[in-house]
């Protein structure tokens, strides 16, 4: 019976593994582009965006136990914030503003990122406040509605005044530039020519490291314990003197602000935002990453995000050649195959590993 919870993983033994992993992560864009071209670097970049989202959602769903089905709304808030404040669109709608911004609307990303965190966080509180008394399915339905409201707002706020440019979306979002380095095209850095896609990768990776550190520190703090207590038994948490309302709102706000930051990155990375990127399906995908990977467990959530965002791409690119090699023709459309695998993966994980692929603690000994 191994009921003892290991305080921390055995540090010494995994050291070489960690080094190997770090080396692989540093070289990942080179490996990916050597293996299949820059398309794969792009896939990795998107995977990292999904990791950010999943980590944000994990604070709400995993740490605090609040089932949020509309998380993508905060991603949308961040993305649209960047699109509005760093593209020509607003000035086209309101020519009067042109005197204020004679060189066009180019808000610095150093300002946009904290602003997005703040505004998305405020939206998180806005969503959290009326839903404090709700749990489980009921909360899921309300948050789902909230996510759809944001998307529909973005879609329809082109009349009477064109703010979001409706279903057409906003294009021409400024490419991120840091310290005079624009993340676009080919970049000369220390005498080496590298595609900007690589730089995006490193930027996202740095952001993720920061978010992971924040998550881990939060989890192992007084706040993390309060969230955990709320997740397990709200009434007892109250009896212990935990202000359940405030801690729930804090979870909503923090999760949302991480989502908002990811949204800013997404808008700048794509150079384009439209309501189509923020559908209910996206919320479900991010939730599936959290649940499949290991709800409440940071490494598990990262694993879930990697599997559910990168594997479908592998499938998309390999399904046709493999089928042609095997059967001489394409029998199942890759997109259908992708959804099939998706559903199958979720069902299997829920059946055989209900706590996720990489859960926080070994719970098997109970069986």
């Amino acid at each position, binding site marked *: 019976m191994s009921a003892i919870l290991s*305080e921390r993983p055995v540090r010494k033994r995994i050291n070489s593994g960690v080094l190997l992993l770090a080396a692989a992560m540093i070289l990942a864009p080179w490996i990916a582009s050597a293996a299949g071209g820059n398309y794969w670097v792009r896939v990795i970049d998107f995977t990292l965006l999904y990791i950010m989202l999943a980590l944000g959602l994990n604070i709400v769903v995993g740490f605090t136990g609040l089932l949020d089905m509309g998380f993508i709304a905060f991603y949308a808030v961040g993305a649209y914030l960047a699109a509005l404040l760093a593209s020509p669109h607003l000035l086209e709608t309101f020519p009067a503003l042109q005197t204020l911004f004679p060189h066009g609307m180019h808000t610095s990303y150093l300002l946009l990122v904290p602003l997005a965190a703040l505004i998305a966080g405020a939206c998180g509180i806005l969503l959290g406040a009326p839903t404090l008394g709700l749990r489980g399915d009921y909360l899921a339905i309300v948050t789902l509605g909230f996510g759809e409201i944001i998307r529909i707002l973005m879609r329809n706020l082109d009349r009477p005044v064109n703010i979001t440019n409706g279903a057409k979306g906003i294009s021409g979002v400024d490419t991120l530039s840091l310290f005079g380095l624009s993340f676009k095209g080919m970049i000369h850095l220390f005498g080496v020519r590298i595609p900007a896609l690589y730089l995006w990768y490193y930027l996202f990776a740095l952001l993720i490291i920061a978010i992971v550190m924040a998550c881990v520190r939060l989890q192992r*703090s007084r706040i993390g314990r309060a969230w955990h207590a709320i997740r397990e038994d709200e009434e*007892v948490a109250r009896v212990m003197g935990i202000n359940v309302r405030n801690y729930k709102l804090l979870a909503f706000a923090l999760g949302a602000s991480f989502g908002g930051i990811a949204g800013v990155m997404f808008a700048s990375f794509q150079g384009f935002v439209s309501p189509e990127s923020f559908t209910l399906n996206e919320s479900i995908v991010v939730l599936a990453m959290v649940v499949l990977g290991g709800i409440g467990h940071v490494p598990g959530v990262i694993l879930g995000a990697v599997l559910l965002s990168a594997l479908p791409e592998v499938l998309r690119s390999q399904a046709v050649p493999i089928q042609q090699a095997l059967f001489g023709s394409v029998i199942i459309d890759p997109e259908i195959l992708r959804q099939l695998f998706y559903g199958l993966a979720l069902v299997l994980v829920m059946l055989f590993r209900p706590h996720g692929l990489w859960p926080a603690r070994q719970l098997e000994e109970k069986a």
Partner: protein
Amino acid sequence: MSLLQVSHLKKRFGGVVAVNDVSLTINAGEIYGLIGPNGAGKTTCFNLITGLYRADSGHFTLGGSAYSPHQIEKVAEAGIARTFQNLRLFNEMSVLENVMTGRHVRTRNGLWAALSRHRRARAEEAKTERLAWHWLEYTGIAQFAHYRASDLAYGHQRRLEIARALATDPRLLALDEPAAGMNAAEKVALGTLLRRIRDDGKTLLIIEHDVRLIMSLCDRLSVLDYGRVIAEGTPQAVRRHPEVIRAWLGGEAHA
């Protein structure tokens, strides 16, 4: 010196008056018992004191100043900690974390402290952990600190709940049937622990079904029947009280 005074407490559920004009005075440093037949209103009374229910009317004084348990969150801060009749631990947490969670109400670390882990934050966290260990040793379950709470033996889970409540630094420790489901040996050990807690300066309020245990443990007690206090005093006095005998034996004794 009285620690908690409850006066004219009343609570009805629909047409049933569960607690009818109950007044109690619990002195500092004593073990106070609340007993009565099933449905007498013990648990309701207990939940009113610990803020889980809202009284229809009544008045509380804790340590000389008015105390109103209308917000559950404020009860622990005011100095009343409780356990539950059917164990309610944070099952997925480790034993140590359960007790550390009990320190929540006596600590201040916020968002910035969690993220930056500055020196004061670390000092508070270290103190939280140190005190949690202290209470685990005090209740005799320190060797299980890194077990998941739900993996503990039943008697140990009961002790863990007491440790978690003690970690809140309560003035009054309220125990809802702490001996429920325990065997004779465990009950004796529990009695020893509770007396020790009293001797270390805490005040205890206990609801219990086991009359022998409560008679041997309590300094004073109240007997409830049909939501009213029918007797109050030392175990010796209460045992001979005619109302108590009638309530327990069904009226034949003096009829």
